[in-house]
């Protein structure tokens, strides 16, 4: 077998046009406001542990422009404000690497100011935010760490250490400006109380899981699509924190502006991470939560959709879901463009188990049936005509309230429904 010359890549001439527009829009003088003039710290979050107090806040796009005189969000840079009070008797070190292991340096950010007269002011302004590490006993110090942009919810750690001790604070700080998918769903009103089944016995619960629909449907409730091969059990807030911690991005609801952003991302290969996803249906409604996790560019991402199921298990909420790995974009007759998915959907399911485990947000997992096997020789098709094959199993994943180490994750053998 020989391979012919690879097809030519799409031309990127209009990427330059987009950049030129941005340059015109981004060029501005250096007129920062002081930190007290910008009320972003109204949303600050504080944690205290063993003599260390950490308070953080994340300015949104407009507040960042006010604070630094530059549209840093357009450059995919997001400042995180951190204040640390050292109430111990020893010196401590703050490690910005824990906030973002690719954090930007002050001079790098200052260099984004284009006018040279303004740049000199900017350098002084940014440098005052400090680059060093030490905080003496009794001191309170504060500054900004310049991180990669996250919209929706910003999740990060603040790591502090000294010769005797270490402190790790995990923060989830909401950032205004993104109309997220699940923001529109009122989870409490999805089901009436008498519609919810409460299971405590594993065998009964397993049977109920097996009877849940095999696959998603289209909006008319007719055609069967991607397999529902995930079950997630836990407190809703813990599940939400878990997926954010495991690097999943919330999805923006479809609007004219976000549609435009998706198109730009697809055409320029840029990383617009929050593009809306198409709707799939279970229980007669579209997904309650859609998440995505970008790999190299928008054409390489994993999609993950969840629906709240009308049941609880041992008092915790139960969600059913679908996950797919995009491996390219293809044109279909049903939608204008769609993502070609990896036909080995079990591989993607196993990836999610590992992804959650390595982010310490998985405590137990099991497998149950219900999808129906489709061997590689006779694959089934999803709603956009992509084939997939599967062993027919659903992965059941328990999300803990506290981080769980890898060695403490338990496999539960649910292969025998009576067990």
């Amino acid at each position, binding site marked *: *077998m020989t391979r012919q010359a690879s097809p030519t890549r799409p031309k990127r001439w209009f990427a330059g046009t987009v950049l030129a527009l941005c340059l015109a829009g981004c060029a501005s003088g250096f007129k920062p406001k002081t930190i007290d003039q910008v009320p972003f710290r109204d949303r600050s979050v504080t944690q205290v542990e063993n003599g260390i107090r950490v308070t953080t806040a994340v300015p949104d796009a407009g507040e960042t422009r006010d604070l630094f005189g530059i549209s840093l969000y357009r450059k995919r840079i997001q400042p995180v404000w951190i204040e640390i009070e050292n109430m111990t008797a020893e010196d401590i070190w703050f490690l910005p690497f824990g906030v973002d292991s690719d954090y930007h340096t002050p*001079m*790098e950010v200052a260099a984004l100011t284009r006018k040279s007269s303004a740049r000199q002011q900017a350098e002084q302004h940014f440098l005052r935010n400090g680059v060093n590490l030490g905080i003496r006993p009794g001191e309170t110090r504060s500054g900004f760490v310049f991180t990669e942009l996250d919209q929706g919810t910003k999740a990060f750690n603040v790591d502090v250490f000294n010769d005797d001790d270490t402190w790790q604070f995990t923060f989830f700080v909401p950032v205004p400006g993104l109309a997220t998918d699940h923001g529109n769903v009122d989870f409490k009103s999805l089901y009436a109380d008498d519609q919810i089944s409460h299971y405590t016995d594993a065998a009964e619960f397993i049977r109920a899981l097996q009877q849940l629909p095999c696959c998603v449907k289209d909006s008319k409730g007719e055609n069967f699509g991607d397999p529902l091969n995930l079950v997630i059990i836990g407190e809703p807030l813990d599940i939400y924190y878990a997926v954010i911690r495991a690097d999943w991005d919330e999805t923006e609801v479809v609007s004219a502006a976000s549609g435009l952003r998706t198109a730009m991302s697809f055409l320029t290969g840029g990383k617009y991470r929050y593009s809306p996803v198409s709707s799939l249906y279970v229980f007669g409604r579209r997904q309650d939560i859609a998440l995505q996790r970008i790999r190299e560019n928008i054409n390489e991402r994993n999609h993950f959709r969840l629906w709240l199921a009308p049941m609880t298990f041992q008092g915790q909420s139960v969600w059913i879901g679908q996950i797919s790995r995009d491996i390219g974009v293809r044109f279909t007759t049903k939608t204008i463009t769609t993502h070609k998915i*990896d036909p080995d959907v079990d591989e993607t399911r196993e990836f999610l188990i*590992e992804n959650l485990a390595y982010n310490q947000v998985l405590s137990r997992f099991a497998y149950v049936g219900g999808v129906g096997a489709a061997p590689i020789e006779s694959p089934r098709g999803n709603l956009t005509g992509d084939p997939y094959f599967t062993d027919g199993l659903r992965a059941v994943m328990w999300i803990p309230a506290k981080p769980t180490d890898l060695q403490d994750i338990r496999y539960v053998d649910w292969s025998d429904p009576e067990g």
Partner: protein
Amino acid sequence: MYEAVERSDFRERAESQSDARVQVSAAVLGREETTAVFGIDLYKQGIQPVWMEIRNSTNSLARYAVVSTDRYYFSPLEVAYKNRGGYSDEGRSEMEERFNKLAMPRYVDPGESRSGFVFTHIAAGAKGFNVDVFGSGAPSSFTFLLRVPGFVPDYANFDAASIYSAEELTAYDDEQVVDALRAMPCCSTDQSGDTAGEPVNIMLVGSGPELLKALLRSGWIETSAKEAAEQQPQFLFGRMQDAIFRYKSSAGDSLYEIRFWLAPMLYGQDRVWLGQIKHFYVLGGSLRRFDPDVDSARNFAMQKFLYGQALQSIGWLAGKAVVPAESFLERLINTPYFTDGYRLVLWLSAEPLSVANIDVKDWDLPPRWGL
């Protein structure tokens, strides 16, 4: 036509590691081997296949976690899909089948052995990765640092034993070493030795192999001999650097570079390596700019080692070669950088050590963070 995996010699150079439960062998395929095995130049697409074999000596099922080797690994059919162009229908399904069949499986039955390929992102220079295998109880975790065929690092001809004669070397004990470190030259020079270059702001204590392991484990990348020769030379102890290592941010907009010189010091079993760390950033396009804030670069490098679990001790030394930021920013002086003059001394650890076990030397207090 494809080359049979059984006939390929990467299996012979595979390195093995084991504990009581699991044995793992692994090898990284070079570009030519990759093309021979898969019939496609995967390196061109940034994909580097790692071959591995896992033997499960326990009585329970073992599971290999693919994300432990590369958290953004490529799935086998994803690699096949990327290369679908130019095949006939029959050829394409043959190729898909081959990728699927050669992929490393996740599960290994008790007493069995399974082998296959994991499709990882390409690494220039030596390849560092983990292989975690789960069964009952604590997982078995192995760290591999493997040579990639076809890559010659800039330090290939470096020989720590022959750089200095016996008379040139001075031995120090714990008491004397701090003063000796303080007395080390502040800066590199040009070739003539007359013009002062950039600061030497980091010092690493450990053997050559320990230094290499610590660098690779912390995510620093080797520089090829060819690439190193294209860099502007810096001199110390009358010679060019012994090695250059780099780290490029995942977004590609930041580049950190460390140059090392072996110092003429003996300190117990250890050697001392003087380092110069610099940061470059990219502002759109490909123009790289030097970040004049060399202290930022120094602190970043320290944290990179710390989070790479490659350190056992850290000490700060205040220095006299201070270039105040104000003077630099107001263009009152003519240096390309500014610095608080502090230098970091880092003791390397051959085995992974968590932050909780780090010993902080009771020398100078570190410079302060923030306002």
